[in-house]
């Protein structure tokens, strides 16, 4: 980092870059959440199922996020692990109205947490219990119970209920993530 970059950093002109992985089952709302976090002029109207992955960027007050929005479809889930090394934080999205596939989400989370690239790193994980607006959605407490999040001892994690269509709950989560990343860097 050159002197000018440092100076810019102190002055708050250039923001620190972080790489974030956005994971979760298909149809859980990953792309919708990322889309909603982008500035309103860059948002797209129609969200289609992601193929492979897509890279999105957005900025918060002090950080510049580069998000790897991974596809959640079963046949693309084996791509996830190739990006674990680069990720400095993880956003895990859960469809809280899909009670049937809660076990699948738990299985994928367990595989993620036991992966050698993740296991011994203290990286923050943000959970979005998405689709809270739906009638048959379960509460975020229930979701954390179903995924047995209380067993995650060595990583900071946070779960927040969200409704990605309206954008509710997203800012709370991203603020937490930003605090965690800054706490790690200093």
């Amino acid at each position, binding site marked *: 980092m050159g002197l000018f970059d440092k100076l810019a950093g102190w002055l708050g002109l250039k923001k620190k870059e972080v790489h974030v992985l956005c994971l979760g089952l298909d149809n859980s709302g990953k792309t919708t959440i990322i889309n909603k976090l982008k500035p309103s002029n860059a948002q797209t109207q129609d969200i289609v199922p992601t193929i492979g992955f897509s890279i999105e960027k957005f900025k918060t007050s002090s950080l510049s996020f580069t998000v790897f929005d991974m596809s959640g479809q*079963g*046949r693309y889930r084996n791509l996830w692990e190739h990006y674990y090394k680069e990720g400095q934080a993880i956003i895990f999205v859960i469809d809280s109205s*899909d*009670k*049937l*596939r*809660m076990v699948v989400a738990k299985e*994928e989370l367990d595989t993620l947490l036991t992966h050698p690239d993740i296991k011994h790193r203290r990286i923050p994980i943000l959970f979005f219990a998405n689709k809270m607006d739906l009638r048959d959605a379960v509460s975020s407490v229930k979701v954390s119970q*179903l995924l047995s999040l209380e067993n995650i001892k060595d990583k900071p994690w946070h779960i927040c209920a969200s409704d990605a269509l309206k954008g509710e709950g997203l800012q709370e989560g991203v603020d937490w993530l930003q605090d965690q990343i800054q706490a790690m860097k200093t």
Partner: protein
Amino acid sequence: MAATSSSSSSSESNEANSKWLDAHYDPMANLYTFSSCIALADLHGDGEYKLVVGDLGMAGHTMRLKVYRGTGLASESTLLDLPAAVTTFLMDQNEPRTPAVAVASGPFIYVYKNLRPYFKFTLPPLDANPLEQDVWEQAKEDMIDPLTLKEMLEGIRDKAEIPLSVRSLRFLAQDVPEMENFVNLHKGQPIKRQTVITCMSTLKKNMADEDAVSCLVIGTESADVLILDPEAFTILAKMTLPSVPAFLDVMGQFDVEYRVTVACRDGSIYILRRESKRPKYCIELSAQPMGLVRVHKNIVAGCSDETLQGYTQKGKKLWTVYLPAPLMTMSLLDHKSRGFQAVMVGLANQEVHMYLDKNLVDVIRTQDVVTSICFGRYGREDNTLIMTSKGGGLIIKILKRTAVFEEKDMSLGPPVAQSIRLSVPKKTRLYVDQTLRERENAVAMHHVFQMDLYRLRLMAARAYVKALESSLAPITSTLQEPIKMNAVVQGIGPTFKLTLHIQNTSAGRPSINLLVSFLYDQSLYAMKRAFFKAPMLVPGLNYPIETFVECLSDKGISDVIKVFVLREGQSMPLLTAHINMPVSEGLAAA
């Protein structure tokens, strides 16, 4: 409730290495059904697959068509009669591509679109027995009383080839006082003979795509197989079987080429093809069929004698697997993304076994006996296993993304090597002649063999006794003096060096006062000392005793030199060794 109950279920011990995730278990779902009455389809065209179940209810009432979405019941509608089969199929090309639900019950097929009644198909009536018609005609004109009618109908029932109509059968089942009323009530209507549907399946019309229009294929109690047009519900093809179909499997496309495999109640499987009015192949099973599944191109039938049998599509038997318990139901596991197909078998011992060909690849233990199995896409998950149990429970399991079925057999049994085929050479003429001869003269050959064997044994015994009596063996037979001896001849002649190795093999007793004597032909050999005293033999040690033998003959002949080890004062040798002397070559050379 259901999701938590599944996580606290008893099968947690082996959950870690299980290939399945317990997604949902509701023991109180009140679903009583069989594999034929269960189907998965994207009923609303929204990408979320629903479960359609024809619920048989309890004791023949409260029959319902239930639709499940996720873990909950989405809708239910009452059925008029017990469902025989439930299937989903696309009727037309219209968007959105929402499949219709067909429920076969009695002689009717009820077709639902958007879960609303849409069409009712009735099987064409069959010809009634003319004799029966005459009798009822007479009853109508009050020419005969109910008792005579009863006798005449019974006569027809016992003899006629065309069976009686349902009305006559019900009449015969009435008590005598009620017959009068029954006749008066029904005699006005003409006699109709109606058959019922026993099984139903679908057949793609002209495209092999997943979302192509399909025809309904039905099997009836009158031993016919009918193929119906998907839109007009006219009969496109009719085939007759020798027996009543119980299970159907259809592959191919109606307009191109298709193959209908039917397991019938006479314990046979018939294979029909396009343009064939009669079965092309017939497989006779060892017992009644309990289920029929097609894996790739092979047919797998489950039988009531607790076996699973595999056949080729031409009816050649491939294998038989013996099941540990009676078979309740069976279904196909089609893992499309891996191109993997296996047969799932629900057993009466509360287990579901998965067979890849004849190999058992996985076992699922369930809380209740499973009566129906369905594998496919449910909700948004591709590999979901849905089972209903005898007690009305609903079990939903999801195959793990990382699960791999190994092709090797996990059940104990004969090793794989046993089933490897050996390349046995062709039978030669000589071999055939020999076998024939052996087959004809088996007894005589056995006698000769036995005789020779006895002789051999006798000779061996005699020789042994003789050796023991004369102590000819190089090892002593007496226990007091266990001595071993061997002799080595060295040299090429005319002088040979003869080394005797004598060893006392007893545990702790030394041998003393032993003499060694040589017996030889004195015209041939000369020896410095033919008789000497052996040293004391300490147990375990090897005593080499060397002597020189000179050959006197130059004619190139040799003889045997006998060595005796004797005890002082006894003429009987303790042991004897025969040394075959080599021919003296030294003299000839000199």
